[in-house]
């Protein structure tokens, strides 16, 4: 009896087996991540933020190289001290619920963020007040100069929701996001997919795709299999270890692009021996970055050549730190550590990070730096790093595998939270307790103006200053890899790991 039932089920399965044919322009995006929220003001992960960007838009946005471009605003002006920013809004734009986009809509959204209740409220922390000048002009008055403010406005955390939806749904707006973007929210099944459909009245012109479904597929082999079987049109990330398989399939195209994710080794710079700049420089000379990229990262990275990645605003190239063991040994000797010393290696247990740290451990053995490796899950890793104090009675010389992606696309957020004295944990993420008055001064100089030439100059000096101080063991900048079917056009990854689907289209 049981067997009969089961065989019936099996037969039924066979009959249903041919996958339902999706319409010509229903696109499936398979990703490693799962959607966590669709309320832009209360979202902290890149993936959810990227889906929100297809539904909602901000006054400013990012282009594919992460440069700030006007979106719902036509443009902006600012004063000399970077404390006032005035935005002129575009006219004639409507939200998906047919209400008007105007200064009042901006006010409602900014006021919501300024209540301080949301995960991205911090973006509006510099704001003292928002003035509505007229229906299509708003002015932000800041508490103090904040040159990177336009990046905060372009950040996906500052997207504009329909005020009507905010009033109607309150904090449940996460399940009913309404914006001005190319796609209208259709459904979100928690733990499974999000579906958005074409906005027929999109203000920037016709949207080609009828719908896009975002599916979490955590296992990379399955993700690639879905692409190959035609059950997904775009996958991210494309696993580096399966590159050969994907390249051999004529239907598939690989997209790779430099990211803004920088990897480095955090060192406890306050205690001997890592407080000695010569020792830190020696460590940098002893790191064979090429080998780490090739073996631990599957080749999907480029060597770091500044403290911030190339795609971050105001990047200034310092040149790759050369791999030179003789020089490294010489510096160790000069510093009085000819016989080396002991450290603790710390790393999150994701396989690529663990492998990279193991390689670092082997490479540093060459100059006498040895020690045990402790790997743990991400939550425990942060717990461990935040547990160190600048005035620990029994300091631990540690070398930890770190990484950072500055979600604002600006140099400030790529440097200040990691290397400024004000950023000591638990306040921010300066886990190595690096501190230099000159660096702090330049960090402030970068924020004192909104004039890009002045800011650019400050950050150029800042990068030049920090690089030889070697607060980190410089490693690499990740290369993003995605894969798509060849007849999908207009979908591409952004350097922060997000993506753009605005002009997505399946062609024949």
């Amino acid at each position: 009896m049981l067997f009969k039932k089961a065989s019936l089920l099996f037969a039924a399965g066979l009959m249903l087996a041919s996958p339902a044919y999706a319409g010509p322009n229903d696109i499936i995006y398979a990703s490693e991540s799962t959607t966590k929220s669709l309320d832009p003001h209360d979202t902290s992960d890149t993936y959810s933020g990227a889906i929100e960007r297809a539904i909602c838009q901000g006054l400013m946005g990012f282009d594919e190289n992460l440069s700030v471009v006007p979106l719902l605003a036509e443009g902006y002006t600012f004063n000399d001290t970077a404390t006032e920013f005035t935005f002129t809004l575009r006219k004639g734009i409507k939200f998906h619920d047919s209400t008007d986009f105007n200064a009042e809509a901006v006010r409602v959204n900014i006021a919501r963020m300024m209540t301080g209740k949301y995960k991205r409220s911090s973006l509006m922390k510099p704001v003292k007040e928002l003035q509505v000048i007229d229906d299509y002009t708003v002015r932000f008055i800041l508490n103090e100069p904040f040159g990177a403010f336009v990046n905060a406005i372009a950040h996906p955390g500052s997207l504009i929701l329909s005020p009507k939806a905010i009033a109607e749904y309150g904090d449940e707006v996460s399940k009913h996001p309404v914006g001005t973007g190319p796609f209208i929210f259709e459904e979100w099944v928690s733990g499974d997919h999000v579906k958005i459909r074409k906005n027929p009245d999109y203000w920037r012109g016709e949207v080609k795709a009828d719908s896009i479904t975002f599916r979490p597929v955590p296992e990379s082999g399955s993700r690639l299999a879905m692409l190959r079987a035609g059950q997904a049109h775009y996958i991210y990330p494309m696993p580096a270890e399966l590159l050969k398989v994907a390249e051999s399939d004529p239907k598939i195209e690989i997209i790779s692009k430099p990211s803004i994710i920088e990897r480095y080794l955090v060192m406890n710079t306050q205690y001997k021996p890592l407080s000695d700049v010569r020792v830190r420089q020696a460590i940098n000379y002893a790191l064979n970055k090429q080998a780490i990229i090739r073996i631990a990262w599957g080749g999907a990275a480029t060597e770091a050549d500044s403290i911030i990645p190339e795609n971050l605003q105001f990047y200034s190239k310092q040149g790759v730190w050369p791999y030179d063991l003789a020089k490294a040994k010489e510096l160790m000797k000069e510093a009085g550590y000819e016989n080396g010393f002991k450290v603790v290696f710390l790393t999150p247990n994701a396989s690529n990070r663990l492998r990279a740290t193991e390689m670092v451990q082997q490479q540093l053995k060459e100059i006498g730096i040895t020690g045990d490796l402790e790997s743990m899950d991400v939550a425990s890793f942060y717990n461990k790093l935040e547990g160190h104090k600048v005035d620990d009675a029994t300091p631990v010389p540690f070398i930890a595998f770190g990484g950072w992606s500055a979600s604002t696309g600006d140099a400030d957020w790529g440097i200040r939270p990691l290397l400024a004295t004000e950023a000591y944990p638990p306040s921010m993420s300066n886990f190595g307790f690096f501190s230099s008055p000159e660096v702090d001064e330049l960090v402030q100089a970068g924020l004192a103006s909104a004039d890009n030439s002045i800011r650019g100059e400050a950050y150029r000096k800042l990068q030049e200053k920090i690089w030889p101080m070697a607060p980190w063991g410089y490693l690499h900048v990740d290369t993003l890899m995605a894969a798509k079917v060849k007849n999908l056009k207009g979908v591409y990854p952004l350097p922060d790991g997000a993506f753009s689907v605005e002009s997505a289209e399946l062609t024949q």
Partner: protein
Amino acid sequence: MIRFFLKRCLSMIPVLFVVSILAFAFVHLLPGDPARMMAGQDADPATIELLRQQLGLDRPLPVQYLRYIGNLCTGDLGMSLRTQIPVFDEIALRYMPTMLLAMTGMAWSVIFGVFFGAVAAIYSGKWQDYLAMFVSVSGISVPQFWLGLLLIQLFAVYLGWFPVAGYTGKASELVLPSITLGATVAAIMARFTLSAFLDVLSEEYISTARAKGVAERLVMWKHAFRNALIPVVTMIGLQFGFLLGGSVVVETVFAWPGLGRYMIEAVAVRDYPVLQALLLLYSFHFVFINLLVDMVYALINPEIRYE
């Protein structure tokens, strides 16, 4: 029998109460800060502090426990820290997919496992025995993720018979993951059935039956098989309890929106209310299935009676 059932149901309450305390203690003992994980890697301290307050994590542990247990008594499992969706709803969404997978996986494994096990016992020492055990040992030895990816390559990518992964409610989506899940369990069932069967076959009443001249087929199926089923049912119950927790590997490989993957995601971000609720649910499964197994014993063997 019904009184026994109800009595056993009532006795589950203290067990689950103790589990609730252990679950709370266990998740709060894990190092790591949920607020830090929710706020995102590049969050500023104000945001993290704000979240800590919103999530009630700034309060002393005993206060947090009392609130948790108070809510639990009214059936409120709390909100997921990560999504701000009630934990009950989140679990409800994932319960059916896991349940479906567990039941179909179990069905495959019972059918094939018990069949192979019985065949191996009946033809003990003959080629059928070796073949059945070869298949079942292979089932135990093959890693699930590898078997899953292999099935995907063959049946989804090359032959295109079944979808690769995902769950949208179609029966075809169930085939590959349930076979993958069932394979390991089937192997365990086969080994278990074999040993239970052989034990029974060496019993005196089997010799008696044979000596009486009962047909060999009747000896096997009526006398031996039925009695051999008792330990097998226990094993089915235990295995089913595990499967209901959701198989992390199978759910990950097949992008199955079930409880196993949810558990892993919740551990990664230290989503306390979700972890507590899942631990409670898993314990409930085991306690409840144990009870069902006891009931089934009475059905198989009329000599077993509960008062």
